[in-house]
């Protein structure tokens, strides 16, 4: 007799290890695909999977097999009108009559091997680049933290959660409802008794009966419990995903001629990381993009990353614009303000001191966190030294010089360490 086994409850991810091996082997290609994806995506859209394709050539498992040439004699089905000795033209591209299936398999082998990275795998590759500590990775990838909130009442729970008012209100209602029929009967009985007593007939027996009845009804009323387990109501609390407040993130970037594509790409990763952090902590995030050269302007994301200006650099113009935007749209009582500034360090010399002053007096007091990165290989310039002073006096200001993507994380170390003040 056959043995019947239900295997459906056994894990389904038997191939997980093999899949991971596969990803591991093609890490270089996958990394490249992820980089390309990051360039193409919006900052706010970073949190999903990605399609990756790898050239078939790289992925093939070679075997010895025949190439085209020599003599092949193959049998095929479905002869229509050939007779023996017919000579026919060779089909183009090594089709059915040619060197057999193998030749055509090679011909179509040019396509890429494409597959989907899951969100998790995508993020892992992305984080790998940024050299994030593991704890932070889990924090960013993990499920939202939960906050317990009131959600009405339930019929059971722990005694500490008993809602007294609700329970007693319920008990009262129950007592009223349960007593009602008895009370009606009692009233009727009492009225009848009064009527009997007032009548002159000899009704002693009836009176006694009525009295007994009244007595019984009173007993019944008295036996209605004051409170019953049925009446108990408990405060109900449920867990809701935590972030319920809102934040605005300012992206400030120098777009003067010296910021090339590579530097902008680095800056983008920097902005993405801040965005992801905020996303974990706030319900609603608005992003404001301010780009500047000698003057600053607020733009959309596409223009922010993709248009190029030339000319000098006045950083304070961006800071001034940011202040104006805050005053106009983001009152500090409603919004948590974060800012990330990327630049290659160039600035109008006399402007740097000005920048530090604006930053310290007019922006930092309202910001939760302000991060500055300088993407450059050269010597630090005036702005860097001015900002160093600011950093000494303000704990929520971070700055870092960046050569590779792995340098970005330290800027946020402080940020990831502590919880935002709003919580």
């Amino acid at each position: 007799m056959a043995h019947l086994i239900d295997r459906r409850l056994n894990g389904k991810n038997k191939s997980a290890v093999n899949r991971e091996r596969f990803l591991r082997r093609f890490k270089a290609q996958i990394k490249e695909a992820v980089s390309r994806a990051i360039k193409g995506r919006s900052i706010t859209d970073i949190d999903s999977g990605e399609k990756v394709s790898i050239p078939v050539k790289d992925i093939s498992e070679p075997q010895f097999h025949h190439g085209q040439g020599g003599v092949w004699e193959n049998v095929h089905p479905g002869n229509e009108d050939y007779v023996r000795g017919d000579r026919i033209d060779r089909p183009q591209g090594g089709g059915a009559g040619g060197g057999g299936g193998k030749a055509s398999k090679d011909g179509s082998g040019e396509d890429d091997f494409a597959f989907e990275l899951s969100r998790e795998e995508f993020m892992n590759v992305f984080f790998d680049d940024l050299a994030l500590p593991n704890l932070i990775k889990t924090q960013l990838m993990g499920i939202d933290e939960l906050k317990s909130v009131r959600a009405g009442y339930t019929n059971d729970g722990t005694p500490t959660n008993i809602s007294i008012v609700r329970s007693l209100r319920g008990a009262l209602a129950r007592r009223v409802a349960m007593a009602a029929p008895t009370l009606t009967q009692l009233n009727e009985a009492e009225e009848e008794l009064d009527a009997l007593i007032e009548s002159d007939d000899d009704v002693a027996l009836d009176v006694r009966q009525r009295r007994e009845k009244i007595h019984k009804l009173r007993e019944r009323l008295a036996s209605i419990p004051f409170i019953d387990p049925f009446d108990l109501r408990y405060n109900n609390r449920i867990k809701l995903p935590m972030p319920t407040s809102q934040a605005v993130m300012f992206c400030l970037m120098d777009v003067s001629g010296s910021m090339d594509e590579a530097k902008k790409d680095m800056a983008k990763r920097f902005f993405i990381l801040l965005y992801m952090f905020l996303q974990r902590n706030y319900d609603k995030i608005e992003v404001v993009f301010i780009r500047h050269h000698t003057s600053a302007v607020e733009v959309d994301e596409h223009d922010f990353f993709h248009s190029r200006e030339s000319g000098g650099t006045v950083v304070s113009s961006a800071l001034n614009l940011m202040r104006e935007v805050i005053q106009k749209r983001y009152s500090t009582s409603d919004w948590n303000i974060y800012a990330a500034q990327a630049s290659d360090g160039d600035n109008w010399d006399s402007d740097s001191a000005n920048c530090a002053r604006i930053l310290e007096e007019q922006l930092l007091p309202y910001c939760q966190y302000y991060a500055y990165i300088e993407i450059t290989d050269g010597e630090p310039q005036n702005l860097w030294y001015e900002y160093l002073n600011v950093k000494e006096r303000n704990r929520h200001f971070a700055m870092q010089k960046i050569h590779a993507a792995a340098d970005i994380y330290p800027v946020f170390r402080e940020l990831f360490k502590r919880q935002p003040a709003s919580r």
Partner: protein
Amino acid sequence: MTPISTGSEWTFDLIDEYDREIRAIAVDEFGLDVYPVQLEIITAEQMMDAYSSVGMPVNYHHWSFGKHFVSTEKSYKRGQMGLAYEIVINSNPCIAYLMEENSMTMQALVIAHAAYGHNSFFKSNYLFKTWTDASAIIDYLVFAKGYIARCEERYGIDAVESLLDSCHALMNYGVDRYKRPQKLSLAKEQARQEEREHYLQMQVNDLWRTIPRRDRDDADKGSVRFPPEPQENLLYFIEKSAPLLEPWQREIVRIVRKVAQYFYPQRQTQVMNEGWATFWHYTIMNRLFDKGRVTDGAMLEFLQSHTNVIYQPPVTAKWYHGINPYALGFAMYQDIRRICEAPTDEDRAWFPDIAGGNWREVLDFAMRNFKDESFISQYLSPTLIRSFRLFSIRDNDLDDKLEITSIHDEDGYQQVRQKLSEQYNLGSREPNIQVWSVNVRGDRSLTLRHSMYQRRPLEESSTEEVLKHVARLWGFDVRLESMDESGHVCQTFEAKALPQEYQIA
């Protein structure tokens, strides 16, 4: 009799009842000899898992299985491909997977096809009997998985992975075609593994130590020829003789070789095996219907998928991909039965010994004693050649046109049959490559020889890639010579050994 079920939903009780009925027909009525059956219900995801580890319930880890999984998953999710209805494992008990998505009728079809059709083929066909040991394969894979996992821990995933890559490249050359293989056994494997390790290494060292010192430059005089005779089993040769492999590496080569050997019969009996299973699911389902145990609706559902399975597109169709083994195999078994039950004069002339015979005995004999190549050359009848309208085309690269060499007529039957049989001969389908010699006195380079058949050359880029793998295993330079039929070397491939630091050790 009443139908076993009327709806399309399956339940465990129903599967059990169908199995009982099918068994009664297959075993009691038609006398199929089967291993005990183990039916396992699995989900679509689990089916994909099973797919990508070549159908085995356990297997060692390797990226290539991940690759198969990824591509299977992709095409399944996009709906480009349905999953196979069944996977069946040549083991004792015989494990057949039933996918939970299938309807009751499909489950019955799979039970008949896999659990009784394939099962009886596994148990009785001479190739499977010779090359595989159904009761030991699962145990052996458990051993292999554990062993390879331990190697990964000790020597690193990369070292093991690249070794497996190289072995996989030679998987089709890991079989002795003429020698009888040894049986597998978990207990013996484990007990002997360590002993073998020491012994082998000793032997290899010995081999190289006892090479006579070269006193003169004259290499030919009194040279030892190694190996004394050409060897067809490249993996075996590497396992036993590669100078630089560590004992654990030899063991892994051996594991890949053993797995290759286990799958070897399946590659040689596609038409026979699938045809057999298809013949039996068809026969059994019809029998169930005759007995009134399945409804008209179920029968229609069954026939619909059955006709899909045995559809043979003609060569002119866009989706023609060669001959469908299900179609050919099924048609051949049906035809043999017809020749036994209702032979024509032509059949009597072609098959005097089976025409009018007992079809069950004839079929049983055919299933037991043949492989695709010999099965076709023995049993392909003119009737079938006509109904498939088979014809052969010669493609000679020295000729600017293709030539039709035979069609389904009196003159062509023999030739079509012979050509088709040839087409299923693994020996001519795959390049014939053997170990030719090792330069034991000089640079230790290994020479392989490809004996050309019908002037068919090797595909160059893949040959070069495979040769790199051979060089990695061998540890020294490797050369491959293509030799034409007159014994003249006409093409040479070479692969340099990697510098020591990139070696797999």
